[in-house]
């Protein structure tokens, strides 16, 4: 039984409700905002500021300059490296899609739900070890004296080891695929898991063959997963340092150029300019992707 005082208290609470709501919003978002400000925006601002500072033999001089942008980022060498890096990112994304989609499709429609999740978890097992070891592990497999070449020689299919298996675009693609196919397959699997199987039956009832069902039903519904997977793979691959460093024949990507700037001469301003430029390119591409596909569909 309520009392008069309780009623008054209720009225007071109701009066205060809007202000309490505002503070709750602030309390809920505050930590996140603070976190991102402290550990993302401020560091990025520092990196951006460094990109306009002068470099002088191992030292950063606090004098404004555009040299790191005009002389480094917009040099023909760097632009060609950017083009190569984006090309690599695009090819790797496409490759991961070609391999990852059928994998996700199989796990969704040809295994049980639990089996699919379990299989995806198995794909994560290699990530329990370091990226460096995962990359170096290709040496005894693809190298001149590696398993593949020995097998080919033993079977007589080749008479001398295939040199293009290692330190080549091929070995890089293999390295990227190993690292990132799970980042493509997992979101697609989740996307496909949301597909109502009645829709597939309806397509069949309407005399749609499997290909038409895929094109008109499954593919559109899986696009959010494809978009998220592509975003992951593209961003991760163009920022990858280990694969181009260890599996290429010495060709640079933007990340290895950044490493070169730091590792030889401690040229932080030039490295900062390259980093910001890479970030801007990635951000633009992700923005364009998100304008094309509504990834919030995956949560519905």
């Amino acid at each position: 039984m309520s009392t008069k005082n309780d009623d008054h208290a209720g009225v007071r609470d109701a009066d205060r409700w809007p202000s309490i709501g505002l503070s709750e919003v602030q309390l809920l978002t505050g930590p996140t905002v603070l976190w991102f400000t402290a550990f993302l925006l401020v560091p990025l601002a520092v990196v951006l500021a460094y990109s306009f500072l002068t470099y002088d033999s191992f030292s950063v001089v606090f004098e404004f300059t555009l040299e790191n942008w005009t002389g480094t980022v917009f040099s023909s060498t760097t632009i060609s490296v950017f083009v190569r890096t984006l090309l690599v990112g695009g090819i790797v994304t496409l490759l991961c899609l070609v391999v990852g989609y059928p994998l996700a499709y199989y796990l969704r429609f040809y295994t049980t739900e639990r089996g699919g999740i379990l299989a995806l978890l198995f794909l994560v097992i290699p990530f329990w070890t370091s990226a460096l070891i995962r990359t170096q592990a290709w040496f005894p497999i693809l190298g001149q004296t590696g398993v593949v070449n020995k097998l080919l020689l033993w079977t007589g299919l080749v008479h001398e080891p295939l040199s293009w298996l290692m330190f080549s675009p091929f070995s890089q693609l293999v390295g990227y695929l190993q690292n990132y196919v799970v980042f493509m397959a997992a979101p697609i699997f989740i996307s496909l898991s949301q597909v109502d199987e009645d829709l597939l039956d309806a397509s069949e009832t309407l005399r749609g063959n499997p290909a038409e069902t895929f094109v008109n039903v499954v593919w559109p519904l899986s696009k959010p997963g494809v978009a998220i997977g592509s975003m992951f793979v593209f961003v991760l691959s163009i920022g990858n340092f280990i694969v181009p460093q260890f599996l290429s024949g010495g060709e640079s990507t933007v990340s290895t150029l950044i490493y070169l700037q730091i590792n030889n001469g401690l040229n932080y301003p030039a490295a900062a300019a390259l980093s910001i430029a890479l970030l801007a390119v990635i951000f633009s591409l992700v923005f364009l992707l998100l304008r094309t596909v509504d990834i919030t569909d995956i949560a519905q």
Partner: protein
Amino acid sequence: MTSGINRRNFVKFASGAAAAGLAGCSGDGSDSTPADQTDTSGDTGGGSSGGQTISWLAPAWAARKQQGTKFGSVTNHSVEITNNNNSTVQQKMMSGGNENFDAVSHDTVLGPAFTTDNDYTAPVATSDLDGWQDGKISDLFLNPAERLSHLKGQTDKIQKFLWEDPQKKQKLKQPPHVFNFNGVGLNPKFVDTSVGSYGALFDDKYKGKVAMGSVPSISTNEVMGYLKSNGMIDASIGQLNNPTKDQIDTVVNFLVKQKKSGQFRSTWTSAGQSINLMSSEEAIIGDLWQPAVFAVRRSGTPCKYATMSKGVQGYQFWWGGIMPTKPGTGGEKKKDAVTSIIDDVHYSAWFPGFIQQWGYPTPNYPNKELVRDGSDDVGDGMGPEYYDWAYEGKKTYQAVDKPQLFDPKTYDWADEEGSPNADGQKRDQGGIEERIDRTALFQIWPDNADYLLSQWKKFRSA
């Protein structure tokens, strides 16, 4: 064997007396020596009350756990070693490391950034170093202008990096503890063992099989030597290690052309990469560092460190030093401890044999009485067979079946005098004086480094 009371003995005896006194006061009465009381936790050497614990920042080639352990066993000090790669050591030093570490080690390429260009290290007086005496230290350091006179103007930088006071020569800016001569490593299964120049890296015979270093300040030098000896560049011996912008352009354009033609199997930026390339036989020849050669052998792949020719395609000389930082973490006391680790451990009888396992000579090799035949508190010297093999270019006393797999770390070196075996192994590159004679370059960070790095991107991205 050294005898009498020198500074090392004095330190040991004094700390022993102090420890005994402390033990008496506490009523412990144990018959312990400072060495027994050492704290050997982690990668530190020992240390007892009254001693200093110094922190030493160094690449792994310069500072290993055993050096710290020895330091603790012969003094009442201890050391905490932090190993990072070359560029990280430099990076840490240039961003406040001089206040967080007491000692730092580096080579003559990246070290001068904080020893010469910036005032982050303190000089060490030769009067504080028992091991630094005429006749006991190589002329490479005591008299480089004469010993390396064929390098002409390059020796100016040796004097500049070595001495705080090049005229008086009383204070060492970068006291050396190891040095070496870089050259070409090759797999004798596939490559003619008479190779003796950097030109082999660009020989069509080895197309697609070359491990090419991508360390601009070093790789440029070897290409300069090759181009000069073939009349493809206008350069003088005195500035072979310090190219002009035009020379850098010529070198980079040459390397880009070579890379695009498929000459290189891959490029390497760390010793580990070069080891992988050679041990897996992906590459059969490359510009390697000495420890990499031994590491390739230890993986079971034969490897020979080529004897380089005299002249501009000869070895690249560098040294690594141990420097007290300024201000460091503990003032003069810690600086004294750093001086102690330089002198007591690294100019000892034990260190030359230890570090020769990775192929590095030490500056005190002329002190044969100590290094070859002697011993001291730190340990035994190399002994006649090991010393003569390492420094005199003599063969081992025992026959060696597979000389290109020979490992000084596992070979059983004789303690007594003996005779070289006709089928014994002779150290690659020969005796030390021969190596010095065949030196073509002194490795430095060139004056036009900024331009070099900006151009090097062309090579990296080709």
